[in-house]
Structures are given as structure tokens and as C-alpha cells.
């Protein structure tokens, strides 16, 4: 990790190493000295030096979730002995939270003796097909004018291998990734299935008057294998599979799966188009910028990992709709210091939707030439998308999200789109799946519009 940090140092001209560490997301906000009421000064001075240092360090208090006022109140109600026990307990909590090589596993062991260790991610080559077929997307519809009974994304033909995408000159390749490790509710594993089975992804877009299927060659690329016992073991395979799709020139339309997927998805884009060549617009209720965790990757740290691993710089990320309660003021300051342009729901309440959208669109246009759209379903209000892992009220309406997505995809060269964290079991209605498909369709309409060289914003 130190090595990763070092590779990034050149990109920042910050005065102190500490500030740099903060900006890189490897440390919480810098410590500030905490002040206590004068009446407590003598009692605090009587505590052991280690305990005094703890009490006056705001970062330490942050770790145990206490404010100076709360500590002062606790000390006032305790005898000197109890006060020392109290602060001692806090010191112990912070120490015990750290890794201890004598008692802790530094890694999670697997079973290398398992037969066919890599079978789930091994691709079946065409050579082994029972019956051969020429490469290219193929339809599974029995009728000429009836959709197939077997659902596919956008009723598109199926492509199973890279050769199918190449032979069909596929421009949009839908792919499902059923990763189900949300830090909220789960069931994202059934997102791809629900969206394939739902309507809303075919037909003419009323705003542009275009039917994307008539302008873009699309295919359903099936699902990518995941290890539903480990996000860590999943992201490598996803990254190579998504990069493979993009390497054919197709735009992957990824349907998740939880938000941890943003990490391998964006990394794949950078693998194909180059570092600094890919910008990201993230529509999400959550900033996904958690700075530290024992696990190297999960949904809540997909953005911070991309930055920490030097795949993306903060300046290439624009966020809209952030409102999740998991982000503190210090977290927001760190994200901003990293260069992330964050347009929270507070900004929208203050300046209005139109103004915020105009700012964000301008930032995206001024960014890298390739755009990746990360759309977490939680950006929508739960009224529109109850079936998500981490819902948060006060979200966008469909009438806000649809035009924004269409405009983004019309104004920019979109090289990838991910729709993350639909969790259908949480929605007893059809709403989440249908709205998710409408979001995908609005981007397709924008891309169709762009292809038709009508790139003016609506």
C-alpha cells in the first residue's frame, strides 16, 4: 500500500505528507487538539500520559464515536479511578481494533486441494461445442414478430464469446454480474434476471423519437461468473471479462450486482482506453469512499480503492445525488481534497436541479474523452426504486434521472455503463426493474441520438 501511495505522490502538490495521506484516502482527517472545560483540566492532567494524549486527539475520539462534550460529561460523573478506567477502555478499543499478527488471520485461507479449483471461471471454447455454429450473435426467438419466451436484455440476440461480438460488430453488449455482497440489504444477485424478465428496454424513446435497437447493434452477453463467498475473488475475473468486451469496441452495459463492481468495471475501461483517458459520472446515493477496512474491496469503498490503486484520479470523477448517512463531514472534505466533484442532494436543494445538472454536464464534457456511467439504483428515490440494497429517501425522480442520463450519453463518448444494486426481492411490485430498464434505455436513446449526429441537448 505504501508503494501505491508513493506512485501517486507526484500528482499532488500538497505541503505535508499527512495532508497527502488524507487526500489519498489512506488516513482519516488530520488530528486536531480537543479542548475541555477548565474545571476538568486538573483531572485530565492526573491521567496517565497515554490517556491524556488520547483525549486531546480529535481523530481518536472520532474512532470511538465520541465528542469532547460527551467525554466531559462522562468524566464529570465518574470518580478519578472510574475516569481512568473509562479512558483506558477507550484506548484499549482503538488498540484492539488494529491487526495483531499473533492472534489474527492476515489472509483468508482457501482450499487449493479442491478439485477443479478454477472451473467456475473457465470459459468453454467453441472447439468443444456439441454442435458447431458460425460466430456472431444469434436469436433465440421462434417467431418473426414475437419476442422469444426466453428473456434477454432488450430482447437482443445472444453472444457467448468474444468472437460473437466481433463477428456481429456489436456496439452495445449487455452483461449481468450477479455479485451479492451489498453492505445493506442483499439480493443484487437477482438483478440481471429481473431486468431481463421486465419490460422497458425496447421500443422508441419518445423524447428523441428514436428506437435504439434500430441504430445500435446490441447483444446480450449473458452473465459473468462471480464467487458469491468473496468479492475479492470476483473482481479479477470481472475486470478481464469487461475489458475483453470493451476491447472489441462494444460498449458494455453492465447490470449488477452490488456497487463493488464499479472497481473492476472502471479498471477494465482504464485497461482498454488508458490511464487518464476515462472519466466517470457516478449517480449514487452513496459516495463509496470509505477509506479503510480489513477487506480490500466492497461496495462502500469502490471509489476510494480506484483512487488508492492509482486507476482513477479524483478529478476524473463527478458524482450526483449523494445523500447517504454513511458520509461524515470529514469524509466529504477528503473526497473533495481528492478532486472529486460531488453534487449532493444538498446542492440540489440549494441551487435547483437544472443548475446542478448544467454544472455537472459541463464538468463531464471538460473531462477525459471517454465516459463511463456508474448508475446506482439508490440514486433514485425509493418511491421509484424500492428494490435496492441501500435505499435512501430524498432521491431523484425518474423525470430527473431519465433526461440526465440521455443527455450524458448523447453529449459524450460513452464507453461503458453500469447499473448497480437492483435487489428485486425487496420490491413486491414491478417498479424497480421497469425503471432500471428505462434508465438503460434512456442512455441507449442518447447514444442513438449521438450516432444519428443529433447531439444537441434536449
Amino acid at each position, binding site marked *: *500500500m505504501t508503494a501505491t501511495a508513493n506512485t501517486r505522490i507526484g500528482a499532488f502538490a500538497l505541503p505535508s505528507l499527512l495532508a497527502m495521506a488524507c487526500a489519498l484516502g489512506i488516513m482519516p482527517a488530520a488530528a486536531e487538539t480537543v479542548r475541555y472545560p477548565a474545571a476538568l483540566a486538573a483531572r485530565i492532567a492526573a491521567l496517565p500520559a497515554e490517556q491524556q494524549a488520547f483525549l486531546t486527539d480529535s481523530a481518536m475520539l472520532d*474512532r470511538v464515536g465520541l465528542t469532547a462534550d460527551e467525554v466531559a460529561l*462522562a468524566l464529570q*460523573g465518574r470518580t478519578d479511578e*472510574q475516569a481512568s478506567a*473509562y479512558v*483506558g*477502555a*477507550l484506548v*484499549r*478499543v*482503538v488498540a*484492539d*481494533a*488494529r*491487526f495483531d*499478527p*499473533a*492472534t*489474527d*488471520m*492476515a*489472509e*483468508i*485461507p*482457501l*482450499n*487449493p*486441494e*479442491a*478439485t*477443479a*479449483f*478454477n*472451473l467456475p471461471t*473457465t470459459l468453454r*471454447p467453441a*472447439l*468443444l461445442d*456439441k454442435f458447431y455454429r458460425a460466430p456472431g450473435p444469434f436469436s433465440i426467438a421462434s417467431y418473426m414478430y414475437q419476442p422469444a419466451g426466453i428473456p434477454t436484455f432488450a430482447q437482443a440476440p445472444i453472444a457467448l464469446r468474444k468472437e460473437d461480438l466481433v463477428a456481429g460488430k456489436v456496439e452495445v453488449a449487455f452483461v449481468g454480474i450477479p455479485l*451479492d455482497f451489498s*453492505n445493506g*440489504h442483499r*439480493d443484487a*444477485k*437477482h438483478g440481471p434476471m429481473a431486468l431481463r424478465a421486465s419490460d422497458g428496454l425496447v421500443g422508441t424513446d419518445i423524447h428523441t423519437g428514436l428506437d435504439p435497437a434500430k441504430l445500435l447493434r446490441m447483444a446480450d452477453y449473458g452473465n459473468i461468473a462471480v*464467487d*458469491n*463467498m*468473496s468479492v*475479492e*475473488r470476483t473482481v479479477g475475473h470481472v475486470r478481464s471479462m469487461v475489458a475483453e468486451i470493451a476491447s472489441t469496441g462494444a460498449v458494455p452495459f453492465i447490470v449488477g450486482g452490488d456497487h463493488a463492481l464499479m472497481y473492476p468495471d472502471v479498471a477494465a475501461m482504464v485497461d482498454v482506453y488508458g490511464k487518464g483517458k476515462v472519466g466517470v459520472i457516478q449517480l449514487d446515493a452513496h459516495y463509496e469512499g470509505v477509506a*479503510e*477496512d*480489513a*477487506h*480490500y474491496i466492497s461496495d462502500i469503498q469502490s471509489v476510494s480503492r480506484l483512487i488508492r490503486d492509482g486507476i482513477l484520479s479524483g478529478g476524473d470523477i463527478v458524482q450526483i445525488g449523494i445523500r447517504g448517512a454513511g458520509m461524515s463531514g470529514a469524509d466529504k472534505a477528503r473526497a473533495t481534497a481528492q478532486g472529486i466533484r460531488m453534487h449532493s442532494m444538498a446542492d440540489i436543494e440549494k441551487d435547483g436541479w437544472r443548475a446542478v445538472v448544467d454544472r455537472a454536464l459541463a464538468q463531464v464534457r471538460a473531462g477525459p474523452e471517454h465516459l463511463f456511467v456508474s448508475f446506482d439504483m439508490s440514486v433514485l428515490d425509493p418511491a421509484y426504486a424500492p428494490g435496492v440494497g441501500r435505499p435512501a429517501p430524498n432521491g431523484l425522480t425518474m423525470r430527473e434521472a431519465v433526461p440526465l442520463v440521455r443527455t450524458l450519453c448523447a453529449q459524450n463518448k460513452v464507453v461503458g455503463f453500469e447499473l448497480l444494486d437492483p435487489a428485486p*426481492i*425487496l420490491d*413486491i411490485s414491478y417498479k424497480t426493474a421497469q425503471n432500471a430498464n428505462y434508465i438503460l434505455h434512456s442512455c441507449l436513446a442518447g447514444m442513438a441520438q449521438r450516432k444519428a449526429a443529433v447531439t444537441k441537448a434536449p
Partner: protein
Amino acid sequence: MPGSGHPPIDRPPARRTHSARTLWKPALALSAVTLLATAAVANMDRAPGITRAPTPPEPIEIPEKLQSRLSGLSAEQMDYLKSGKSRRIVNPEVMFRRFESLSSEEITAYVDALLSLQDQIDYKAGRDKASIPLDTSSPSFNAWKIRRPAELNPWREDGPIELGRYLGGRGSGFATFANAPVALGPKDLIADGIEVAIVGAPLDMGSGWRDARNGPLALRTAGAVGGYGNDMFSMIDPTRVLKIADYGDIAIDQQSTERSVHHVREVVREIAKTGAIPIVIGGDHSLEYPNLAAMADVHGKGNVGVVHFDSHYDIGSDRVHLIDHGQPVYRVLHEGHVRPDQYVEVGLRARGPDKPTFQWMREMGMNYHTMVEVEKNGWAKVMEAALANARKSAKKIWISFDIDVLDPAYMPGTGTPVPGGLTMREAQPIMRRLCAENDIAGIDIVEVAPYLDVSYKTALNSAYLLNACLTGIAMRKKGLTKPHWLDPVSSSSRKGA
């Protein structure tokens, strides 16, 4: 555990401390002296566990008419073909049919492709990772399981915390298991002589639908709809007869079952050491492993038998992950916490189990009562057979109750439901009887996934089953251990109990 394809994951793993295949592996090697001492202690009560070797592939016989076409293959290629290992990659019939139309060179290329795929599939040191690295530099590495120090609360005497505000009524709105007071640590259990400590373990990494993390919550709130109280069959209210506490939830790392199970084992052991009966509310069925490992820690290996209610046998092995909700029984047996003949499985009917596995289970001496047996002999007979198995399995028994043993009509809120299951009128008596007629070491009720059920059914039925077992434990405390004892006034028949 010689020649084991399936290493132990228990703690400490004695001679396997350095092995990448143990689930418990401290980062630094302990000093040689400590290590030897640990190994000696750990091996003393160690009954050897059982190991199931992976089923070898069925060899492939080369059809007579293809012999000449295959003459161009090298000895290595020929051996590989005959070994049958390629069955995982391509169906032999499909392969041979293809060979009929391929030239000798093309056949060689085809077999080369198979060999290259085989190489890709097999684990290869250096190329494949035998572990998942964690970020040991994170200051929050263990934050998920740090216990809250007692010093942070105002001073109080040890003992369960009563949450009720009023002298009468149902408490103050705080939902706890069986409406019990709250215990935060072993001292609280000991101070009041708590007999049953119910603890949540919201592990949520099942292979089907998820949401077992909300299982404990569902069983707590079920109290508000009458889930706990007087059992009419025995006319006993276990919440009045037994000293019960709600022990809160056990911390879970929701990104790793492997990391979570060790902590579950610690907490279940901590409860049982006080003399209280631990009841673990899941959470997915991986929990059966740490629960039984904890029982072995406290009561000794081979001293606790198991009745495993489930539509699935959960005895999977030979997987990349050393534990998941399909493998707990194997881990328990493999580490020798319970002997195979001490296992009783009831209600099996899922699609997964295959004939070789059942045959292996039979050879190992395990007892199983499938729904096939229920179809053949009727529930009453099967229940008696299961009860008899349980009685002779060990002095103490653990009940691992996966709610999917019931039909989804009763338990829609579960991750891997299977139709054709038990009814509540079948499950309730056996739970009550098991807990009355045996010395219960502890129980778990797992795989409650409330958001799969838009109704109250799953939560209420699960609470009723918990209450049925609590009733049995209370009956035993009162000496009512006679087989199938029912209170005489609970039915109009004047015949004695």
C-alpha cells in the same frame, strides 16, 4: 488427519499452523516452543475426524472404431483421455462423435486443447491464490468485533438488564428474544444463574436468496405478535419457568464467512462455559460449524450428538471455500467435533444430494431420515426413529434447525426453500419432545430471511418452534421427561398423560 484433501479449520490448528489450507492462520508463526505446547494441548482431546476423498473420475473407454484414428496421440495425451478427467470439460460422447470427422492432426489439437483447459482448471501454485489477502494496515482491522467496554456505561451490578418500565404488561417496546432481559457478557449470565441465553448471529452469505442477517430481528419482533409464552400441550410457560436472557447479536464480518465463524465460536463457547444453554438464531447454516466446534471446546469432542433438521444435508466438501452454508456438517465431522454415528439428519429432500454422497453417509454410520422415509412410513414412525437415534447419539444433543425443513407454505422467508416439507404440526412436537427428553447442549435456528415473506408467518412459526424447544427444556427442569408427555387437562380425553 493424514492424507487429507480437506484440512481442518478449527482453532488452533496444531501442526497445520503454517499450512495455507487451514482456515485459522495467525499471521506470524508462533515461537517453536509455544507452537509445540499448543500442538500438544490441542491434540490431547482430539478425536480424529473423517475425510471424504473426492470421487475419482470414471475412466473413459476408447471405442474400438476410434482406436486407429487416435494412434497419433502421445502416451501422455492417451493417458489423460483414458483417465476420465476430461469429463468435467466435455462429454465423452460429444468428443468421440467429433473425433469421427476429424483428421489425426485435428484430434491431436483437440486433445491438446483439453489438456490446456485442464491445466487452467487445476490449482497451480504461483498462478492461483491459495488465500484472500486482507489489509493488515487498516486501523479498523478488528473493529467489527470489538466488544463495547463496560466502563462506557454508567456503573451497574452484573446481571441481566430488565428493559420493562411497568410492573405489568409487555415491557417498554424493546423487542427481545422471548421477551427476555438483556445480558451483555458472561458475568451477566452468571450473576443471575441464567439457564438459556439466546443470541443472534446475522451471518448472511447463503447461496440462494439472502437476508438471513435480519433473522434475529424477525424472531425478536415476533414477541410482539404472541410468539412466546404458554405452551398448551404441556401447560407450561417457559418464559416463567426458565431464566432466559437475550445475549444480543454476535458480530459478523458480512464480507467473509471464514472470518466470522471463529468469532461465533468464541461467543458460543463463552455462553456455554457459564452453564447456560446457548440458542443461536441465524444467520445462515454455516453457523452449525462454529456452534458444534464451541460445544466440543466446552464439553469435549464426541460428547455432543446432533439432530440436523433441514431439507439439505449440508455435507458438501471439496470446494474452494473451506466453509459455506452447504458444508458445515462436513467441517464438523472432519474436525472430529462430532462422530458420524452421532449425527441425525431429518427432513432431507433438496435436489442437490446425490446417491454416492448418501451411500458415503451410510458407510460413515450417519443417521438420516429423509422425506422419502416420511412418504413411506409416515411422520409418526419417522419421528420416533429420529428421537431414538438422538437419545443414543450422546449424553447431550445439539439441535441445528434449518427452517427450510418446513414446507414453504409455513416458512416462505428462507433463502433456499424446498417444497414438500414438514408441517408445523409435525415440527412442533418433535422440537418439544427432543428438548424435553434429552439433555440439550444448545440449539440453533437458522436461515430465517424475513424479507422473502411479505407476511408474518415465517417469523411467527420460527418463534413458535423456539418456544416449543424452550418448553421442552422447562419440562425437563420440572422432571417431565416421559416420552411424549402431554398435560392431561389440555385435551378432553380423561385418559392420563
